């Protein structure tokens, strides 16, 4: 299996740049395994990413066409490429800050237009690369380098937002749910139309260390405790769901 | 025609001032003349002051905006007041008598364009074409065939018939040159 996966990696790129405990490496592997599972030729794939840690998942690691763009605009670049050459299978991989803060407008419009893009948002709830500033996904009360007294704002519910904008397939999983996540990526690749997957991915040095989760196991435990599958959530009261993250699928499932 | 002829149309938005300029320019182009056309341009579409200009020449046109008009075609009193002071020596003013009572007597040609449009066609929107056709018939700045062809190519199919009828009315209304 490991050898079989090598063909998906660009030769000559030795290691990933991700910090110890980062979830992006898990996501990287799951995307490639999903592609492998569907037996997709990497030469048909175009990976588009923006700026930030998650944008480095495909570029330069994936052995396919990759377009590493400006901050927030990945979806707009992808829109141009996909519309001009519909044969390209276009996947956008970027972070929460890139796709939902600076690039939020492009995201909702691409969902509205139902462009056949597979958008994967690695959500680490913080600006990792720039030093741990608050994001539009940081939970309320959490400490970041720009909210020393705790984040006063509410975070976006990314899936609700994309679903409201017209996303065809919308899903949320944590890297702590690898099999379900891989199946979800396969589904997004298989379905036509605008697909969106939010992937919760731990960031130890920025998000964890500022919020009493200084090691990878701690933040992974936190995520595992926080995430609750949609089916399970349906029987729970509002109080029981408080602070939980509901994972699962919405839209065309 | 040895020198360039400069024509200015004036009225308010919605009267078809811009279309009149476009038709005249396109017609002159069909007559194989050099043409430059421009018009006032603003955010308001209806009811505001509106201007449109065309230069027709045998030679290439250096500066493409009207400097001193030879022919002024006006459809509002305001446009008349605004533009009539600036006219070439021997220039002509064609005016829609529905809207304008000119102060000057020399060089003015009255056309009851809106009146005819309402009376004979039942749609005041074609007053611009009646007025333009009258200008063409009176001055010969472009051929009547070219104007008809310009109408053909510029006007939506469903509006074609009554615009052509309007042109015929205007052609018949050859003004008496002062």
């Amino acid at each position, binding site marked *: 299996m490991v050898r079989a996966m090598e063909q998906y990696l*660009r030769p000559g790129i030795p290691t990933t740049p991700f910090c110890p405990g980062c979830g992006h490496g898990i996501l990287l592997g799951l995307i490639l395994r999903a592609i492998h599972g569907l037996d997709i030729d990497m030469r048909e794939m175009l990976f588009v990413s923006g700026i930030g840690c998650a944008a480095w998942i495909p570029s330069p690691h994936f052995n396919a066409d990759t377009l590493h763009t400006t901050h927030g605009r990945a979806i707009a670049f992808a829109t141009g490429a996909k519309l001009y050459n519909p044969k390209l299978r276009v996947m956008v991989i970027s972070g929460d800050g890139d796709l939902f803060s600076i690039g939020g407008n492009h995201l909702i419009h691409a969902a509205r237009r139902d462009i056949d893009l597979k958008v994967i948002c690695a959500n680490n709830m913080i600006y990792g690369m720039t030093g741990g500033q608050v994001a539009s996904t940081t939970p309320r009360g959490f400490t970041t380098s720009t909210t020393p007294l705790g984040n006063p704002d509410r975070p976006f519910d990314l899936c609700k937002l994309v679903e409201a904008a017209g996303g065809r397939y919308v899903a949320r999983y944590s890297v702590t749910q690898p099999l379900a996540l891989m199946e979800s990526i396969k589904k997004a690749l298989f379905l036509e139309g605008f697909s969106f997957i939010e992937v919760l991915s731990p960031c130890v040095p920025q998000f964890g260390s500022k919020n009493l989760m200084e090691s990878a196991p701690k933040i992974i435990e936190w995520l595992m405790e926080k995430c609750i599958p949609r089916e399970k959530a349906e029987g729970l009261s509002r109080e029981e769901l408080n602070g939980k993250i509901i994972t699962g699928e919405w839209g065309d499932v | 025609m040895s020198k360039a002829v400069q024509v200015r149309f004036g009225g308010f938005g919605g009267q078809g001032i811009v279309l009149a300029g476009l038709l005249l320019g396109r017609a002159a182009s069909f007559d194989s003349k050099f043409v430059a056309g421009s018009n006032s341009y603003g955010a308001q579409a209806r009811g505001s002051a509106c201007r449109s200009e065309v230069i027709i020449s045998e030679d290439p046109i250096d500066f493409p905006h009207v400097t001193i008009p030879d022919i002024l075609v006006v459809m509002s009193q305001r446009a008349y007041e605004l533009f009539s002071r600036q006219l070439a020596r021997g220039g002509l003013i064609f005016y829609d008598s529905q809207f304008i009572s000119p102060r000057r007597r020399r060089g003015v040609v009255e056309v009851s364009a809106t009146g005819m449009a309402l009376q004979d066609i039942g749609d005041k929107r074609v007053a611009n074409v009646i007025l333009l056709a009258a200008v063409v018939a009176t001055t010969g700045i472009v051929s009547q065939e070219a104007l008809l062809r310009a109408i053909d190519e510029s006007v939506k199919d469903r509006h074609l018939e009554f615009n052509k009828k309007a042109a015929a009315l205007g052609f018949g209304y050859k003004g008496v040159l002062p």
Partner: protein
Amino acid sequence: MAWKRIKASLPPGRHYFSGNEAVAEGAISAGCRFYAGYPITPSSEIMERMAHRLGQTGGVFVQMEDELSSISAVTGASWAGAKAMTATSGPGFSLMMEGIGYAAFTETPCVIVDIQRAGPSTGQATRVGSGDIMQAKWGSHGDYQIIVLSPWSVQEMYEQTIQAFNLAERYRVPTFLMGEEAVGHLRENLEIEPWVRVFDRKKATGRPPFEAKSPRQIPPMPSFGEGERLLVTGSTHDGLGIRRTDDPKVHARLIERINDKILLNKPTIVDVDGFFLDDARVAVLCYGFTARSSLSAVKGLREEGYRVGFMRLKTLWPFPHENVGELSERVERIFVPEMNRGQVGGEAMKSSQCEIISFCQTNGEVIRPEVIRKELMRLL
């Protein structure tokens, strides 16, 4: 060679078009099959006609959510193989600067049309200006080159749009057509030749797309989906596109190359036009719509026996310093009328051996011939 001859988009002969319409026709003639844009005065007629014409020619038109995404979609489409363009004005041009830097750094061929209006900010949205000349060159951060053309007629709006695509494809560089509101909305005769000469980007397999043997050469540009497994990034990259953000040598070499590939090819890029220069004492150095007023004024003065000449810059960037320098050795003074605060006049001072006299008009109106005449009379 990657030159070819294709049929013009319109039947040959004389047409009557606005400048903005002529831009769209030039684009279609040049083989443009992708347009992304956002409506803005006074350039919107370009996108309206492109929507209509791309529908007829099997191209792709998309109205984006803003200008940031428009230039981004254009770059994405260009890498997917399209001859791609966008058009904008004023504030929209400002928004595009981010994507223009990306296109320049990734050596993406694309055409950006800026129909200039009176700024800054919202300014006079429906009025004319030429205040974007410096922004076109320096608007995005960092050091890069672009090509800027300056049309003065409806005919040139058509021809220079074709030329802009040819230059963009040939040199792998964002190329700008900097019209002004007055020429965008001007209607004039447009003479259409039956055939158009167009240049298509060079492709090659297995060669680095960001590296050339000599600084004058342009690397080949394959498209997505051709099996080249391209790495395109706006970060500093080596010849293969691999990020090298810590290597001073790689950065220096890349910056030098993307500048040199334009500057060393200046003789084939730059185009100027001159009349009455042989015995001129004073020359008018002009561009865009103001060149129409200038020509009219100069012709009038010539008829009266004044020794005044006329030089028009059809290319504004890379700046024709060689031509200005040469001119400045032949005349006593150079008069530069502009609808801005002296953007080209200031640049001309870098290469001029004689006095440059800037005339600036920033009231949202064109500079009329009589104004230029009056100013010239003072100098003659």
